[in-house]
């Protein structure tokens, strides 16, 4: 056959604050995968390892406050001091914050979570507490965001597939760029 430009798979990110059960994930994730989606999970409370095994997830990440906000440690002492200070401040703030807010802060600070969210085409809140972090994260890049996997499945069934240029073609205005997730 001739070379074909294949659309890249849709990337779905599941966000959960309460530890999900296997039953809650098994059929929904299988349905997403069956539609050709790449599914990743950001979970504030990690369930037992066997819950996530063999689900077909492309990866998962725990949403906890990381010490560093950069993918690689910078050598600049100023940067390292700022990171340490901001970590301590956020720890203090977290004590007085709800779980949803803590999950959002963790997602915003963690470079690997940020990378996952940057590529996301669809965000899904798995539980009621996860609605808040998803709501905040969805505002950043105007990513479609849903409460529950069924709505995300309907979205995938009705929306156009992610084209090869879908992510790249997304226009970034100055205002949106200012809202970009940063450390």
């Amino acid at each position, binding site marked *: *056959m*001739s070379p*074909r430009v294949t659309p890249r798979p849709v990337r779905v990110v599941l966000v959960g604050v309460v530890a999900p059960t296997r*039953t*809650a994930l098994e059929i929904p994730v299988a349905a997403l995968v069956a539609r050709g989606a790449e599914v990743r999970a950001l979970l504030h409370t990690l369930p037992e390892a066997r819950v996530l095994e063999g689900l077909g997830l492309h990866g998962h990440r725990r949403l906890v406050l990381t010490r560093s906000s950069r993918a690689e440690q910078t050598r600049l002492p100023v940067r390292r001091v700022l990171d340490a200070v901001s970590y301590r401040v956020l720890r203090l703030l977290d004590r007085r914050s709800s779980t949803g807010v803590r999950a959002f802060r963790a997602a915003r600070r963690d470079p690997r979570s940020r990378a996952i969210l940057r590529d996301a085409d669809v965000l899904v809140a798995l539980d*009621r507490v996860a609605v808040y972090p998803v709501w905040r994260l969805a505002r950043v890049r105007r990513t479609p965001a849903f409460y529950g996997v069924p709505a995300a499945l309907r979205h995938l069934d009705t929306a*156009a597939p992610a084209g090869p240029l879908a992510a790249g073609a997304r226009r970034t205005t100055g205002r949106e760029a200012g809202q970009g997730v940063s450390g």
Partner: protein
Amino acid sequence: MHADVHTDTHTDTHTDTHADVRTEMSAGAWLRAVDDDRTRTAALRQAPSLVDGLRREGRHAQALDVVARALRQARGADLLARLGGQQVLLDLDLTDTSGGAAADAGAAEDPDRAAVRAAARTLADAADRALAVGRTAAAADHLLQALHVLLHRSLHTLDAPSPLSRKESGWLDPVTRSAAYTRLHLRTPRATGTPDARDRPRVLLLTDGNAHFLGEVEKGLVGAGASVTRLDLSGPRADGVVPAPAVLARARLGDPAARAAVGVSAAAPEVAALLDEADTVVVDWCTAAAVWASLVVRPGARLVVRLHSVEAFSVEPHLVDWSRVDDVVLVGGQLESLVRHVVPALAPARTRRGGPRVHVVPNPVALDGPPPDGRVPSAAGPDAARTVAVVGWAQPVKDPLWALEVLDELRRHDPRWRLLLVGADWTEPQLPPGRRYRAEVLRRIAAAGDAVVRTGWTADLPEVLRDAGYVLSSSRRESHGVAFCEAVAAGCLPVTRDWPDVAEFGGAAAVFPAEWVVRSPQEAAARVLALAAEPDDVRARTAAEAAAVVRARYGTTAVLPRLLDVLVPAARSAADGVRPGDDARPHLVYVAIGFPPAAKSSAYRMRATANLFVDRGWDVTVVTIDRHAWDLEYGLDLSLLDLVDPRVRIVELPLRRADLDPDVRAYSWFRAKHPTRWVRLRHRLDTIPFPEKVFGPWRRTLERGTEAVVRDRPADLLLVSPAPYTTLAVARHVRRRTGTPYVVDFRDGWSVDVLGEGEAFGPRTRRGRWERRVLAGAEAVCTVNEPIAAFYRERYPELASRVHVARNGFDADLGTDLAVARRPDPAAGLAFGYLGTVNLTPAHLSLVVDAWAAAREQDEVLARSTLTFRGHVGAGWAAGANGNAAVIARAGVHGVTYGGPVAKADVAATYGRWDALLLALAGGRFVTSGKVYEYMATGLPVLSAHEMPHAAQDVLEGYPLWVRPPALTVEALRDGFVETARRVLSASEDDRAAARDHASRFERSLQLDPVVAMLDDRFGAVR
């Protein structure tokens, strides 16, 4: 006789949607234009038309270059979808599915069927998007291209198995499940016209070039006194009248310009008079002619379409407006199964109420003259005893390679065996895959040397077949094979392959005796050799019997009367015509939130109620909410609409539950940050218009919408079916504004707490006052069981005489028999099942699961057994993710599983996999539940796991395979599981039959009909 009887009319018609842009621009010029920034946009826009043109001209390599380049440069989902579809079509044109050597540079590998489906899905999505914004022409183009992709001939007509040949393949789902396709086959009320009373019916026979099977039909019609005109729409008289398929598809989707073009075509002088005069229009082969006829045949004239086998694999049946077709003729039982499986508009569930009547009438075969007197092959020709004939062989669908394999097998035993190929020689196919297949066949024929004899086309088949003792049908699919039947009638001994493309749908055994049918070349050779080993007289007797079978089943004298009964029925019953005085029919307005296509259990009761009223001569208008609102709860099941009488009018009001909105981006900060507080506040506000949370705000829209329906056409009766209870306010409102009497189908009641077994609210509360007010004005109140009825008679003594019981029941008319045929296998363990919404409390479910685990420890058969839950667990965002789901997940180690919801069509198959059923119900004496009726209809042992007393007991009393533990405790239920396993293993056929007999009285319409009859008597008198 004609040896080349089956001309493959499968045409891969290209859409010609940009006829203005031809291929004057060469591929080279286009490539230069696309490199230039100034002309790139225009060039990209022209790319699809250019590719279509190049493909039509067979310049596939250039077309592929253009498509690949355009795909790299193009933006816009529509253009990408269209180009992607074209790329797949070009690949399929060039791809060899027969595994032959690649002869063309462009073809290197088999088509990736997943890529084909993905392209079709992308096109169907594009069609839906276009439709959503009113671009019907673009939607039709995308849909048509998607169908062409999925039904490309190289996927279905070469010697690889067609994806449609497997029932479970869901090959066409990407298209048939799209909104555009659904729109194409929406059932719309058909225009009526008065049939003219004529002594001599005038029949117009329409063909699209292939009139091969019409000779006998025409003779028969003339013999029956009909005035017959034949019109070949691709012949010189009317060539060019029928618009291109793309125009027909656009017209079917309602595009005004295309409709006008079709109208002009029907007014063309060549056809206008013929269409106007005909009482009956018969279209042979479901080609573009059938699509066109379904658009232009005048109201009042009958339209009959006859399908053969190739159409099941073609696009046109998906474009025909089947609601305009009166009768469909299929030429074999196996083809009926296939076509009705492949074309959703002809599915049995869809045509059961409304739609065309479907008949199976074989092609009549002219077998005049005396039957053969058992001629002995060896006496007929010198080599006949070792000659196998294949009649009409030169097409991929006839699969001559398979016949050559049979010859190889025979020659392994005796090199004197020959293959006689009768029929026209193979013309050079247009596309490379067909050319390669032909080349392979010719190579094998040449290699066989004298063992293969080609006779060419002959007008005298019996004479040619004097040289053959056996006839072989090697086709991939057949109706019954007219030429094959002629050969059998001429005295050849029959051997027929179990045609693989229709094997799952009945195959050859559906039309011929089983001993004729073989599944492999080895089996075929074995049958031929076994027959050859018989004495001459036995062979002669077998041949005579085979000929008699063919004459009895397919001879003109046997078949033609049946066909004429369909084409020109002696007298149409008055009931089929226009009913006089439609306005005189009583009118029911039925407020039924949850009416199909909502995938809710209440949908079955509602559709049965509406259908029963229609059956009694009422016009029914159902008022419900926007169907897409159900996506937010348990979802939609569009197939439920097929069970609704097409005469029922459905009005959908723009309402949906705001609290279930899953679009997080639309949430306010307060809702996102404090979801629980938001819900609490929202519920308080909801009760301001009407004292019911969530649904209270719907009151005004429901009242106004229903009132508008009644004002549009006055109603003789208003029927409301809460929940939601806000519909009670509608009943009162409409009564006050229009004076329409109303009835409340109260089902589970409101003030009765069906789970807590007391009253849900007192009579002096706001809800209590509303209930009293509305029920006081009701003509009748229906509940689902006697305890609820007794509650209301006691609460409102003045209403006692108006309270009736209309039980639920199982639906016998869903098209499936629920009776389970499976027999238990104690060695493998038993399968216990639960089917229905798992709406127990987690504590109740935990108790059931604990009892199951304890029973597995106690009983060795149960230790090997499984307990499966099917149905919804949680709704909306929590679908499959609530507390009950966690309980089931934890019990996985004890053989407990959850299998997800079950579609209506799979209910019978799901029960069929189980040995016993678990009836776990919430509530007590007020809760009957719908599943108890369905459970009983299976005839399986049923274990009760609910409180006692319980309303389900009244229904189960007398069910011979009912296991009733004395209490709802772990120990009692554990013993119940053990006892159920014992009953499973000991139940006899008689026990199961007695169980089903007990259930039969609970069929739903039997339960509802007395109440509907009572209402019909009181309110159904013609005004």
